[in-house]
């Protein structure tokens, strides 16, 4: 479940922890890779991806039940 952090790229700057509207990262500590404590509470607003200073350090995985139905 979303979001996913790439440990190789994440600099633990804490931006995503600061801004997440749902506080999915509750319990994260400063200067440490963020914890994804409440993944099921992600709103998929994309704020963490948008404001992350390192491209590819954080991404969203859209859960299967939310996948777009198309033809």
């Amino acid at each position, binding site marked *: 479940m979303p979001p996913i952090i790439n440990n190789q790229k994440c600099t633990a700057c804490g931006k995503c922890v600061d801004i997440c*509207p749902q506080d999915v990262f509750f319990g994260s500590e400063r200067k440490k890779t963020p914890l994804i404590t409440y993944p099921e509470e992600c709103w998929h607003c*994309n*704020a963490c991806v948008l*404001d992350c200073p390192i491209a590819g350090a954080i991404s969203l995985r*859209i*859960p299967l039940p939310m*996948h777009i*139905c198309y033809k």
Partner: protein
Amino acid sequence: MKEEMVKADVLCVGGGIAGLMAAIHAAESGAKVVVAEKANTLRSGAGATGNDHFRCYIPEFHGADIRPVVEEVASSQSGWSRSLKFVHTWMEHSFEIVKLWDSWGIPMRHNGRWDFSAHAFPGGVLNTLKYAGQNQKPILTKEAKKRGVHIINRVMIFDLLNQGDGVVGAVGINTRENRFIIFQAKSVVLGTGNCVRLYQAPTPGCDFNRADPPSTAGDGRAMAYRAGAELVNMEMPRRWAGPKYFARCGKATWVGVFRDPQDKPIGPFITKPDRKYGDVISDAYPTLFSDYANSGRGPVYMDCRGMSKEDYEYMMYGLKNEGNLALVNHLGEEGIDIRKNPVEFMTYEFTTRGGINYDEKGETSLKGLYAAGDEYFGGISCAATFGWIAGENAAKYVKKVKASETDTLMRDIEMKKDWLTRILSRQTGVGWQEANIALQQIMQDYAGTVRTESLLKAGLSHVQRLKKKVHATISAKNQHELMHCLEVLNLLDIGELVFTAIMERKESRGKYYRQDYPFTNPLLNNKVLVCKQVRSKPALEWREVKD
């Protein structure tokens, strides 16, 4: 639990579009302003990662006469539920806000000009300005700080403090640390947004898959009600539509035609993608998706095939600014090309359209209490405009009143604090999710699509019984869970009110339908249903909408 006291002239509860605009204007008017925000104002509320349509009247686009725009907005947005004076004030001030936002760095022009599109019938009065709101929240936060506004993030305010017939502050919790905060303020502006999570989400088990932010759980409505302020139209339903299963606002950002599985357009308005008007059939026919699904004629597709290169780029620009980048990325990852693949749409869950009864000055029925934005549905431009107005009026109000002391309220405050401590200390209680699901189930089955006297009566008693049990047993392991517990308790109060109000409106009208009263009662024309708490019970009153 640690305790902290914060003093201000004006306290803005919620730092979304309405709250920040109120804070900016109140501070400009000389007030000492504090914003208490449940998340972080940089990316919170329904405008968190953007919006792309701003309802407004621009003289150089619409001409000197404001009336056609006011009439269009009144009929499409507020119907009979708002006075024309309210809509007129909204439109009259909207251009002022557009110019302000543009000067602060929120791009309000598309390719250098005022560009209106969507949300209108072909030939109708266009009233939504296309803008690029992706960074509106960081920009508004910066403007607020520039004016000395003190923003306190990660605070959930859950109750107002009353003295006499006025409001003198509020109490809240820090959502990360075990801290209780007392706010002493001469005036309070509520801007906590929508009322999400009252009904079941479109996907069972994915309760946060919502078109509007799941953090906006009707806190403002509930605390205003408990403080004795009037709410209005709580019985009126509101439902959004959008991509099936990926709940998201921004239907009007899509440039395509709604078609059935045989590619036949559903509506009479357009036969090929048209970015200027979009396909308004889903506005004219709100039960379209469920009707097609239930009768076996579905699914209904949003079909963008045949769109021009320019329209495709315009739509992608719109989705990005409407805060739908996660959706755009998902389409890309799945190899879904909207120029080739029609996408299914659906109607999302119910909520109440009603909310706090605030007028064109942002005033509520309580002295010193103001409200704006989606405390009563109005969308982004309504939030910005009435936030601005409410902030100015709150600042004027505080100049007339003396600082109130909260000392006499200490006993009440201590009781609230003890109650929170009990919720945190219960070892074997009910979790917030369990309580929320139980409420949603009752709302869905007894006040959902089917609304009749016998169901409503039974449903109301179920909610009241549930409320007592939840109050006695709800438990939280940490501050985050405590925040959710308080949200669910707010939703329970709102659920009870929704039942009470539906039982009072014995008719059908617009999108409101009662199977046992399928007709419109002309005696209720131009009237709204107002409710407030009197001696711990909801008291209802029909009131004429004055122009």
